[in-house]
């Protein structure tokens, strides 16, 4: 299982307006009731300790189990691509450095994957960006010095990616992360 060594420094969130930042690090396997400030809605979140982005390589196995996915690994010169095929048909690609850290996650397919699972602590950043963006319903972009999350598409055709800027291996273009 995942240890807590997170090799990526995280900067504080840009937006002060986030009303529903999800707390990472809650105990695994428990259901945690999160009351959403400002909304008459409750969300039941099964909190998993395994978070892919920024986590060690071993987290991909947890993602595979959680997402009931098949896995194909493709080695590249300075990283590996772990491609998960979900039962929905959606493809998830996790990019792993030679030192074993997931530095990027990309997805595309007819429905969005479990982004809480795949982005881990950075899922809160996605949620915050979605709420402050002027991108409308069908586009999302968060570009920070440390973190990039982009998503686009429409009903039955979603795609997106998230990557940790400082963790991208030298010589690798972000264009390869898709």
């Amino acid at each position, binding site marked *: 299982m995942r240890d807590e060594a997170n090799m990526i420094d995280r900067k504080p969130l840009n937006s002060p307006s986030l009303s529903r930042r999800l707390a990472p690090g809650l105990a695994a396997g428990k259901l945690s009731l999160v009351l959403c400030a400002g909304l*008459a809605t409750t*969300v039941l979140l099964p909190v998993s300790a395994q978070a892919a982005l920024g986590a060690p390589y071993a987290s991909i196995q947890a993602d595979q189990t959680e997402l009931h996915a098949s896995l194909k690994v493709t080695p590249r010169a300075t990283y590996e691509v772990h491609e998960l095929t979900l039962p*929905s048909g959606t493809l998830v690609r996790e990019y792993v450095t030679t030192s074993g850290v997931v530095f990027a996650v990309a997805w595309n397919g007819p429905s969005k994957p479990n982004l809480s699972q795949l982005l881990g602590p950075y899922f809160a950043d996605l949620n915050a960006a979605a*709420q402050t963006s002027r991108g409308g319903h*069908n586009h999302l*972009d968060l570009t920070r010095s440390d973190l990039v999350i982009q998503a*686009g598409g429409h009903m039955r055709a*979603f795609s997106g990616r998230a990557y940790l800027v400082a963790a991208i291996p030298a010589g690798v273009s972000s264009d390869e992360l898709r």
Partner: protein
Amino acid sequence: MNRFQFFLVGAITMFLAACGGKSSFSGSSGNPIAGPAANVVTAVVNGGPNNNAANTLYTTVTICAPGSTTNCQTIDNIEIDTGSSGLRILAAALTADLPIQMDSNGNSFAECTQFVDGYSWGPLALADLTISQETAQNLPVQVIGDPNFATVPSDCANTGPAEDTVAAFGANGILGVAPPAQDCGSDCAVPNSLGFYYSCSSATNCVAVAVPVGNQVQNPVTFFPTDNNGVIIELPSVAATGAASATGALVFGIDTQSNNASGSGTVLALQTTSGFLSVSLNGTVYPESFLDTGSNGLYFTDSSLTQCTDSGITGFYCPASTQNFSATVCSYNGSGTCSGTSQQSISFSVGNAESLFDGNATYTAFPTLAGTFPSSQSTVDLGLPFFFGRNVYEAFEGKSTKAGAGPYVSF
């Protein structure tokens, strides 16, 4: 311009639109825009219910409980989206009492509708819908943010933030007129992992289920007795610097009335479920491209374009001067080539998003708003800016027109 003046301009614009002629009036670029008719409803780009929307197209609909003439409501600020199928209404904007759809066990159907920037959760209901003089009876619709369904399944919440309020959604509802007849179709009528539909035995206990096609949320236009084979989005051209609003028309049917005859544009075939076609741009063919009024910009990858850096508009382009592009739109064939397919040339311009947004606080229509698309090699998203100054025909899945069989677009 103060807010009152802003609304005055909008009101005058709408008045002029309504009085523009018996059959049609012209946008300044010359594309004819349908005047009032039974199969025409006004479509307007403005700030929407939160007065902060950009490039978002709205209309007004009337809904009633099925069979009722009194349990009814007219709702404005309904977003027109060619990128999704089905009518969805925010519970907060709903006063009419609509019956919830039940399965054979008496459990309520509910849906987790995924959008790129979040999800909308709520039950499936039935309504009689009237737009202009077109009516869809017993139409399956979604009610978003119903307080009686306040517990969101984790599989839904794990896809992004909730968009269950008018403030978060940016509209009182959404009118999805994408080519597919349902939002999911046969894939969701059998056990699946797509995560669209749920069955709720109580407000707190909803499980993913298959839902028969007939119960799924439907493209309302396909339920009209006539004028049901497609739509035409007709928007006037807008100055490159933007405008406070833009008023056009949503026309129902293609080749069914005197005001909706097929145009001269090339028929461009779409992939059935996704609506994909191909766009050739800058020497690359993007085989997963699409036209979408629900995207508020032109989204594509061009690493030579400067991106905006201000918080909230990252991902939009901010070139020092307006940049012009030529591209070719061609029929879907799933490959990386346009050769041998039907195709049509287009041109568009990319302005500086920061200048556009800062130029005039009352502006809501921006024909040169553009930004990045994440999967850099596969998609050009021709969003609402593409529709300004054009009449865009969209024929539905399984329907045909004099120009050909749907799904297709032409312009």
